[in-house]
């Protein structure tokens, strides 16, 4: 018997979900779904807020468990009396802002100079693997690549450089943090490029450039004047996230940053782990300072935006057509970008070569003896961290994808509009420095007796995976033509059926890619594992970072290479799976409409 036709207004905004005739609250179809945003928020923001509170209170002296019963500024005084502090703060601000400016300039420069050329299309394919590789792996590979006794030196010595022994140059872990900046730029530029590409799709960039060029503007100038101001509001939040990350990164700073003094975040980590427990107050104050630094830097950048906007406005309509040095600029920027990508690839290659090297002394360009023994010896030791990485990553990515799909579906069913404020809330975990709230979160977990448990670990990863999954899934989901859903509803399908049978198959590729992105983010997390894992869980990233401080590059190569491979495999699977599924689907005469690409 055919089900009765449901009214098209089943999803009327403001009212309940479809089937409002049924009694019962939570059990109403759509009722459970409406708890999803609430669940997401509570999983998400409340612990961050609790973590912040748990870190700020000790900063002002309130930590009864440690004897801190009164509010006061002694922790702050101790903080500012610490001898390493001025250097650490200067280093943090300098490297963070420089890395962000360089990444932004490179991303924008590349778009401006090379859009529409073949290298641009090629870049889109290369971006996904670049982004999948964790920060720590790139940092470790880079540390080997550019060190005075590193690969580049080995390739060029002694025939080109005359160095019989490695020169006494501080290249890695240099006191100005330049190697740290380079390591950050290697990863941030692809991310900003990806965000820019996404934004380009929404502003008819090609047409705008065509119009501007028809008006006589050179291609790069046309892009800079016509397109960049349009996409900038959309890449603003990712830029702030990049800025916040560069200012508060720990794992990359541990590998590439200087040690005396280190940037602020690793210094705070050192203080948090000090057996002298009174250092915790000072560390909490430092975490507060870190948050203030990030907020100040973001405010500075926002002010800079406004200033630059005002200065640049007359230039936009002044009629200067450019075109003069553009082909040179294109070649230079294209070369620099290719160099960056080549460097990232070499970083990975270096890890791979070390993992199968037996003996590799300076100045040999390649190992003198090769072996598979490194992998054989460490397969057992690798098993447990690899398993943890895999299971936590899959769980966090799956949960995040489910929550995001629930939120997006809820939004569409109840006709809610995505708000800018919602986007800021989403970015909160990415903007608040990890070290500033993870300590409070850890205290919370210990209180609840949950630290060192697997759910706590997954939750701590979920916190950072969720924004990325949301960002990568929101646009394709919202862009899916709603007429498909409406047609299906009018054919008598319930909203749930529409979701599972119409929307999801059409969006299979974006969903899988979002899942892979979430997995990649989880693999690369360092501090959350340390804090929430309670010392009981080790992932490939934590192992690789602590091994990177060791000497056996062969072992580091094994761990870091495996750490880099896992997300790449996830991406490959995400891209190959829809095609494979499609081939398996039997061809029927009356083909259902769920096989198209949709918004992929």
């Amino acid at each position, binding site marked *: 018997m055919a089900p009765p036709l449901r009214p098209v207004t089943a999803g009327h905004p403001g009212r309940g979900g479809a089937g409002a005739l049924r009694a019962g609250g939570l059990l109403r179809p759509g009722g459970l779904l409406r708890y999803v945003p609430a669940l997401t928020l509570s999983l998400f923001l409340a612990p961050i807020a609790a973590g912040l509170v748990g870190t700020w209170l000790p900063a002002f002296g309130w930590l009864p468990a440690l004897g801190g019963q009164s509010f006061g500024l002694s922790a702050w005084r101790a903080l500012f009396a610490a001898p390493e502090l001025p250097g650490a703060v200067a280093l943090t601000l300098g490297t963070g802002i420089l890395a962000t400016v360089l990444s932004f300039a490179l991303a924008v420069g590349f778009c401006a100079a090379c859009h529409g050329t073949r290298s641009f299309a090629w870049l889109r394919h290369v971006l996904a693997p670049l982004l999948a590789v964790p920060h720590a792996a790139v940092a470790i590979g880079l540390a080997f690549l550019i060190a005075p006794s590193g690969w580049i030196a080995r390739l060029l010595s002694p025939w080109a450089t005359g160095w019989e022994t490695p020169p006494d140059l501080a290249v890695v872990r240099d006191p100005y943090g330049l190697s740290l900046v380079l390591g950050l730029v290697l990863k941030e530029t692809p991310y900003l490029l990806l965000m820019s590409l996404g934004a380009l799709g929404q502003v008819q960039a090609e047409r*705008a450039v*065509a119009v501007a*060029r*028809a008006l006589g503007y050179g291609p790069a100038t046309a892009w800079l004047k*016509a397109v960049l101001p349009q996409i900038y509001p959309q890449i603003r939040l990712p830029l702030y996230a990049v800025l916040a990350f560069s200012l508060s990164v720990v794992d990359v700073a541990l590998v590439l940053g200087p040690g005396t003094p280190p940037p602020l975040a690793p210094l705070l980590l050192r203080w948090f782990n000090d057996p002298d427990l009174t250092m915790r107050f000072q560390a909490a104050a430092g975490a507060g300072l870190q948050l203030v630094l990030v907020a100040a830097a973001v405010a500075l950048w926002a002010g800079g935006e406004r200033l630059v906007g005002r200065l640049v406005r007359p230039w*936009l*309509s002044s009629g200067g057509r450019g075109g003069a040095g553009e082909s040179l600029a294109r070649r230079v920027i294209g070369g620099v970008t290719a160099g960056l990508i080549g460097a990232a690839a070499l970083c990975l290659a270096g890890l791979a070569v070390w993992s199968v090297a037996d003996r590799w002394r300076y100045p040999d360009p390649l190992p003198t003896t090769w072996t598979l023994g490194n992998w054989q010896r460490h397969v057992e030791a690798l098993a447990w961290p690899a398993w943890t990485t895999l299971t936590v990553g899959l769980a966090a990515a799956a949960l995040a994808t489910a929550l995001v799909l629930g939120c997006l579906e809820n939004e569409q069913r109840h006709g809610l509009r995505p708000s800018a404020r919602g986007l800021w809330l989403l970015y909160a975990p990415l903007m608040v420095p990890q070290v500033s709230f993870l300590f409070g979160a850890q205290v919370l977990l210990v209180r609840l007796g949950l630290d060192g448990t697997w759910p706590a670990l997954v939750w701590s990863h979920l916190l950072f995976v969720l924004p990325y999954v949301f960002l990568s899934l929101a646009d394709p989901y919202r862009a899916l033509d709603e007429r498909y859903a409406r047609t299906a509803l009018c054919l008598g399908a319930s909203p749930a059926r529409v979701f599972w049978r119409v929307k999801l198959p059409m969006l299979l590729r974006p969903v899988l890619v979002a899942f892979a992105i979430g997995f990649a983010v989880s693999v690369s997390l360092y501090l959350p594992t340390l804090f929430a894992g309670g010392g009981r869980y080790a992932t490939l990233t934590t192992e690789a970072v602590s091994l990177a401080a060791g000497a056996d590059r062969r072992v580091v190569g094994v761990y870091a290479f495996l750490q880099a491979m896992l997300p790449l495999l996830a991406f490959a699977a995400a891209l190959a799976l829809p095609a494979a599924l499609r081939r398996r689907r039997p061809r029927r005469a009356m083909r259902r409409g769920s096989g198209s690409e949709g918004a992929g």
Partner: protein
Amino acid sequence: MSGGALRLCKVSLRLGPRLLLPPLSLTVRAGEVVTVTGPSGCGKSSLLAYLCGTLDPAFRASGRVFVGAVDVTGLPPERRRIGILFQDDLLFPHLTVGENLAFGLPAAVRRGRDRRERVEATLAEAGLAGFAHRDPATLSGGQRARVALLRMLLSEPAALLLDEPFSKLDPALRAKFRQTVFDHVRRRALPTLLVTHDPADAEAAGGRVVAFGHAPADDPAAGPATEGKAGGPVAVIRPAPLPRRS
């Protein structure tokens, strides 16, 4: 202002193995509006893209294009002095109306004051005086279309390409705007190619019509402008349609 013509010499388009447009030769006289019609996907917009210089690399094109006496085949779009109008007005949302117009002004007009005066004069002439500081999003569809047209004309193009610029306007506005465009075209003696689906546009243009399609077995009305195989794609040039008696 030009007195030159827009000349296409054996312009041909392929997409992969498929021949979209066999070699087409056409001369658009100064002040003439030649209409290009045909079914969707037959390559009309791609032809315009080739003329303008922004053809997607997936296509392969051959043939030469002349603007006046200058061979522009192979020049980058910014040097061809061919203006283009699309369906969407594509006014830059981050600039005011006045700044959008100033964007089109040649760099030769240097001083800020001169530029502002030119912009104000243009706006006044078009009946949009005082709109210089407005945000384009606050303008109506018809006003935006007019500003887009003015912006393009301010850059002093030597030829004009119109890619269905009237199709997003509602019918009442369409006729009026169309007339404005054609008036400007005639006044400045610009050779113009108009791509459209609407036969009323072709009539109002009053120029020849290039009809893309497949070659009919016999079409007594005109001679083909393309050399093509029977049954293959072909563009047929018909003379200007007679104005209907209303």
